[in-house]
């Protein structure tokens, strides 16, 4: 017996899903090329493609390899991570509101980053990566332990309340530190916006193992999550252990969110919005929702980053601001149109 919801009697349905996923992937690829081409110095798409295939030492080639390519790849990786984490969180907590901001992961990372800046005087993103990861891990474990105390399972409201409680406490610590330490505040206000700019390629390569591990776990959890969506007892009968699924889920979310917050700062709304769009296209089957989210999230992130570079030329608006400005209205539109009851 399959652990998934009743298989589609209609094959065309699956063909459509695959087709749309491929289409989304093509859009993503095009966006990546545009992201390499657009900036304070425009480079033609033709040059971008030849430079990638046959690197030269021309001015364009240096710009591409030193800043545009790392930025685009970082956007791709962080986008995938945020999409997967968002889908995973919403399914785990059965809460349409779940996102790294609400469940305290961002707050945990922020405290750790501010603390590391203030105590050790760190100034380099690749230096406070580890602190962010650690903070995110501690906060999400704390939220999970608090939310699942007692015999009964962690319900959506419990997790959301626990997340709100812990975020508030940690947020207060952040403002406390920032108010007492001018230098830390100056660093923090730029980090907390969320930006893909100015990160060297090393940031990405350092974090790639975490992102990869988190993504693999996320994809592997699709089936047990489907089974648990039928209810705990039904899920158990179908061979999915609720506890193991949750623990692995929290682990994956921590790896994905922690690494991306560390790399680019807290970028809101991608993890919250994209899974809703994905579910709108595919229906509730996690085997589709998670891959779709992992493709659509980098689309949103890269498109926002490109937009931020175009509208404020020759300056740029940080991607975290654009994702909120782009993602939030979409989200509000969905919230208005759909009934969006508890998942």
């Amino acid at each position, binding site marked *: 017996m399959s652990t998934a919801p009743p298989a589609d009697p209609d094959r065309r349905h699956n063909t459509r899903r695959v087709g749309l996923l491929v289409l989304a992937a093509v859009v993503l690829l095009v966006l990546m090329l545009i992201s390499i081409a657009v900036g304070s110095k425009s480079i033609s798409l033709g040059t971008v493609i030849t430079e990638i295939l046959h690197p030269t030492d021309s001015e364009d080639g240096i710009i591409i390899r030193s800043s545009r390519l790392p930025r685009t790849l970082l956007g791709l990786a962080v986008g995938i991570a945020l999409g997967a984490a968002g889908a995973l969180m919403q399914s785990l907590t059965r809460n349409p509101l779940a996102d790294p901001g609400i469940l305290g992961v961002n707050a945990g990372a922020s405290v750790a980053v501010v603390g590391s800046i203030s105590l050790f005087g760190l100034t380099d993103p690749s230096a406070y990566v580890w602190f962010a990861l650690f903070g995110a891990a501690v906060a999400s474990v704390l939220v999970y332990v608090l939310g699942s105390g007692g015999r009964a399972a962690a319900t959506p409201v419990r997790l959301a309340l626990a997340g709100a409680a812990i975020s508030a406490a940690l947020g207060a610590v952040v403002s406390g530190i920032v108010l007492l330490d001018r230098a830390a505040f100056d660093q923090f206000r730029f980090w907390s*916006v969320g930006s893909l700019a100015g990160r060297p390629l090393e940031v990405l390569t350092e974090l790639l193992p975490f992102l990869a591990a988190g993504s693999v776990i996320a994809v592997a959890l699709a089936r047990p999550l489907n089974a648990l969506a039928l209810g705990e007892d039904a899920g158990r009968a179908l061979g999915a252990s609720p506890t193991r699924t949750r623990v692995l889920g929290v682990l994956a979310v921590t790896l994905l969110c922690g690494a991306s917050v560390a790399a680019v700062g807290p970028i809101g709304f991608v993890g919250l919005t994209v899974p809703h769009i994905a579910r709108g296209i595919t229906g509730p089957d996690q085997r589709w929702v998670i891959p779709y989210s992992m493709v659509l999230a980098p689309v949103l992130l890269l498109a926002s980053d490109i937009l931020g570079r175009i509208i404020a030329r020759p300056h740029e608006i940080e991607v975290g601001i654009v994702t909120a400005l782009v993602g*939030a209205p979409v989200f509000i539109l969905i919230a208005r149109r759909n009934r969006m009851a508890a998942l």
Partner: protein
Amino acid sequence: MTTTPPTSTHPRTTGRPARILLARSGRVSVAFRSRSLWVCAGLLVTTLVIAVLSLGTGDFVISPSNVLRTLFGDGATKDTFIIHTLRLPRLLTAVLVGIALGIGGTLFQSLSRNPLGSPDIIGFNTGAATGALFVILVFHGTANQTAVGSLIGGVATALLVYVLAITRGVHGYRLILVGIGVAAILTSVNAYLMTRAGLRDAQGAMVWLTGSLNGRSWEHVRPITLALVLLVPVALWLGRDLRFLELGDDTAGALGLKAERTRLLAVLVGVGLTALATASAGPIGFIALSAPQVARRLTGVPGPNVVPSALTGAVLLAAADLAAQRIFAPTQLPVGVMTGAIGGVYLAWLLSREWRKRRG
């Protein structure tokens, strides 16, 4: 119908039946649960104790008996000056802002039937902050102009959220979702403003954003007193109707209640209270979220606990301000840091205790 079931965890009622006191006079009859009365009395006493403590502590210590003597108009000149001019306005602002936030929170949480529906989550505080940041960072306005800016920002945001959430009636979940969406936009606008400002301006704005009671004078006490005198009676009257509304629109309709009108009125009163609180002390976080939750668990009564929430808000904010003044003395941390820390830890502790108790 899109009404979601009441999602908050109701505390288990005690084994014995609740004792209910009835007071009738003419057409008006009021039912009190005796436990609620005791809780309110306890909260009132706690507020008074905190008040005496915070009036007496500081760089210049005044003993509790001298504090009381001064309050009753019989104190030394120096004590009178310190208490009446410096400490009393600050304390009163804390208590009144706490009351306003507590009631605002309980109204919104009852409307959305969700603890997350409180004004600090659904964008209200963020909107107020945006208004204030514009005044501070773009127009370089004075403190009073900042308060007006926050008032406009908060009210505009709340109305925007409410209008966007209407599609054939407002429903709890949609209100929260739309609120979170609007809050996210405004948060990023705020972050943008912060990165584009000079460091000194940004730091001043940060103090305001955290919520502070430093240097509050009688000027700050008057507007919020007036607002409370006007709005609290309406809130009390709304409390009963909202309790019926929590039973569902159909039941409430059968009881002769106009659901939409009650909701709109509750939103207006809630917004008014929260806006004034924010204008007085900045967007102090977490009181509006936690006070109604704490009050509900203390009284054991579901639904809007208007008076207990108000008193809990007052206790929380006054205690937080006392702690903020003393813990890192002589550094005066803004009270918002404390409300977040105390409120967050307290709510976490409360939730975990309650959830663990159910294990048995």
